[in-house]
């Protein structure tokens, strides 16, 4: 702030404004070049012959938005808060007028740039954001309050974890918990478990794995094939799926774990794609692109969740003498994945304190030093790979059991990217951070399914923005677990 105040004193406001206008015009020019082709012309091939429709309105709106947005942000940065706020209010008011008007008078809609009214309305976020930021800066400049980081935030993570577990336990019994909410929570927990599993590989051992979904697929297909071909139950298959996935992890890991960093990333990515291609083409074994149908659902200590179970199988609702409700299975699956996830978490937290976990973390920090200390890097990495794969295998067989149907479509690279994003955005190595990132990336977008096209757009944008805003992840946690002479207290 001080440096900025000095520049403000040195350079007259008109000079600031001139250079700002120039830069804003430049940004607008870039925006024009970016949008003129791909936004301005829509390719349509409805009649078989390709033609184009023009959408110049969208270009004008985007270029204007970039120009004024850049100008407002620049003004805020230069300390000229009030002009920015007034400008944002004016732009916002015009926008609001058109938006409100378009409800009553549809002819105004042609001034709106996008086809979806929700997206048009969300344009209001920009002026509102600028006003809020301006007011915040204004308030800060007045009070000169120092906002320090909350010291010792780690201390709260203990009870925060217990509070989260408590909340997760009572969630399905809350009055507002309908089927949709529990389903979303189950999905989020699946990703939390996958994130915790991948965290062993990426966060602890520091191995960049872009093909994690391969092990998820191995787990899912193991369970689906074992149950449809041999009639094995979920609880028998769960450890088998984990073991198979871990075996795959070792098999794939063995040749490639000597590679470092980015090479490993690209090879794991290649393996992930290879497994998917094999699943698609190995028709007689995996069912090819059609996948596997009618995978058996898991039972609760031998009790089924069907209304009319098969001969000789007891049903959950008759055994406990309660009304049948489809929610029972949904809630059961929710608790199942919650238990699996908590086991993963517990495992990670414990193994970090064991020699193996320490070796992983040491390897992440300095491989050469580890070698000098007699740690075998290949074997150590291989165990991390195998454990990570095992948890993916568990999660995969849960996924197959929950869906009742699997196909290679579910195991595309995007899934690997999403899981890796959860781990990294949460802050590498941070267990709670992963929960937070999974809720932000999976849980919240799931509520906006109606906007499905914009959902993935926002997902990608969110990944970029979170990384730019906090490169270390939402809750960065990379401290060594153990330090000499309790230096830890002094630092955090």
């Amino acid at each position: 702030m001080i440096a900025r105040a000095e520049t403000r004193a040195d350079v007259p406001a008109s000079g600031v404004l001139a250079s700002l206008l120039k830069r804003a015009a430049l940004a607008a020019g870039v925006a024009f070049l970016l949008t003129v082709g791909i936004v301005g012309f829509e390719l349509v091939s409805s009649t078989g012959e390709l033609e184009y429709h023009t959408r110049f309105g969208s270009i004008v709106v985007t270029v204007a938005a970039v120009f004024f947005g850049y100008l407002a942000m620049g003004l805020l940065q230069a300390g000229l808060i009030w002009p920015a706020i007034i400008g944002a209010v004016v732009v916002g008011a015009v926008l609001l007028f058109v938006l409100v008007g378009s409800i009553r008078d549809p002819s105004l809609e042609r001034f709106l740039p996008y086809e979806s009214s929700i997206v048009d309305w969300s344009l209001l976020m920009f002026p509102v954001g600028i006003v809020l930021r301006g007011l915040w800066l204004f308030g800060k400049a007045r009070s000169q309050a120092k906002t320090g980081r909350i010291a010792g935030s780690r201390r709260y993570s203990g009870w925060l974890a217990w509070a989260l577990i408590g909340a997760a336990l009572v969630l399905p019994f809350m009055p507002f918990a309908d089927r949709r909410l529990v389903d979303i929570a189950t999905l989020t927990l699946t990703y939390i478990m996958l994130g915790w599993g991948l965290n062993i590989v990426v966060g602890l051992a520091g191995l960049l794995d872009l093909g994690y979904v391969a092990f998820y697929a191995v787990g899912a297909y193991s369970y689906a094939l074992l149950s449809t071909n041999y009639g094995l139950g979920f609880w028998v298959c769960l450890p088998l799926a984990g073991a198979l996935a871990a075996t795959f992890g070792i098999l794939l890991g063995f040749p490639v774990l000597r590679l470092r960093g980015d090479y490993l990333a690209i090879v794991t990515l290649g393996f992930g794609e290879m497994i998917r291609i094999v699943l698609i083409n190995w028709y007689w074994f995996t069912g090819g692109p059609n996948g596997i149908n009618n995978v058996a659902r898991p039972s609760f200590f031998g009790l089924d969740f069907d209304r009319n179970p098969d001969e000789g199988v007891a049903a959950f609702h008759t055994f406990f003498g309660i009304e049948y409700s489809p929610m029972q299975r949904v809630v059961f699956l929710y608790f199942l994945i919650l238990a699996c996830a908590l086991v993963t978490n517990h495992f990670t937290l414990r193994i970090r304190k064991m020699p193996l976990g320490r070796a992983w973390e040491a390897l992440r920090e300095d491989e050469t030093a580890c070698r000098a200390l007699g740690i075998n890097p290949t074997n150590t990495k291989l165990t991390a790979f195998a454990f990570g794969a095992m948890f993916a295998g568990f999660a995969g067989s849960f996924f197959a059991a929950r869906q009742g149907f699997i196909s290679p479509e579910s195991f595309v690279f995007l899934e690997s990217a999403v899981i890796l994003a959860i781990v990294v955005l949460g802050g590498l190595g941070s267990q709670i951070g992963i929960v937070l990132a999974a809720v932000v990336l999976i849980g919240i977008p799931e509520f906006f399914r109606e906007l499905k096209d914009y959902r993935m757009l926002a997902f990608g944008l969110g990944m970029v923005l979170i990384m730019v805003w906090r490169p270390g992840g939402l809750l960065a946690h990379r401290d060594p677990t153990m330090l000499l002479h309790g230096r830890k207290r002094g630092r955090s």
Partner: protein
Amino acid sequence: MAYFSQQLINGLALGSIYGLIAIGYTMVYGIIGMINFAHGDIYMLGAFHSLILFLILGSLGVTWVPLAILLVLVFAMVLTAMYGWAVERVAYRPLRGSTRIAPLISAIGMSILLQNYVLLLQGARGKPLHGVVTGSIPLFEQGGFVVQIGYMQILIILVTIVLMAGFTWLITRTTLGRAQRACEQDRRMAALLGVNIDRTISMTFVIGASLAAVAGLMVTLYYGIIDFYIGFVAGIKAFTAAVLGGIGSLPGAMLGGMLIGLIEAFWSAYFTVEYKDVAAFSVLVLVLIFRPTGLLGKPDVEKV
């Protein structure tokens, strides 16, 4: 022999396209050490820009094919290069000097963003473009099988050779190329000696994106259909090509691209089409195990 020669021609044409994309990966990796995951999508944007420009030129009445292709080439390179520049400015520059993994995640996010951006704007359907450059020259005949080289294949290989020559000149002879090589060796030292690091890195992205745009144009003409998803697979293969040739090495990228193209063509011809991607990746794994620096890469000295 005839069949073999035909596959050789097909493989070289395909490999040229991979090589053009691979250069973008290898340059960026060489200079800032990150995998620019969004590069495949930049190539996809290049293909879309080419298609749009062809239609515009068509409606403006430019029907002489060589002129149309030249105009499309220039404009598509400019428009796509802006994307390369903007992606670097928005998603990577703020993360310079951060952890290794942060720009990678940002790049994956950018890739998802660009794919869905084009999906939203242009729809999910494949966009066809019917024969702009058609016809072929029969080379020789053997046992009833005519080996022929298409005009399109000639065009692809010629354009690639010309661009590679120009590009080699740019890297070895110009100030910009010297600055790029300096940044690659030691960024801080280069900055101390007056090289504008930000500008050099931006230019690297611009060059990579414009080469990807050329590849996009070639693919649009060669296959005649594109969609928003083509960037992903082509991107992975081009990266594979870059690693195969030795990442950071420009001739290596071209060589790797050619090899991947040839492997794909021969594998599809003699074995199975379905597993051609598996073949490309298997070669990558084998190369990395036995020669981790790639074919033309310099050995990576490990420092403590």
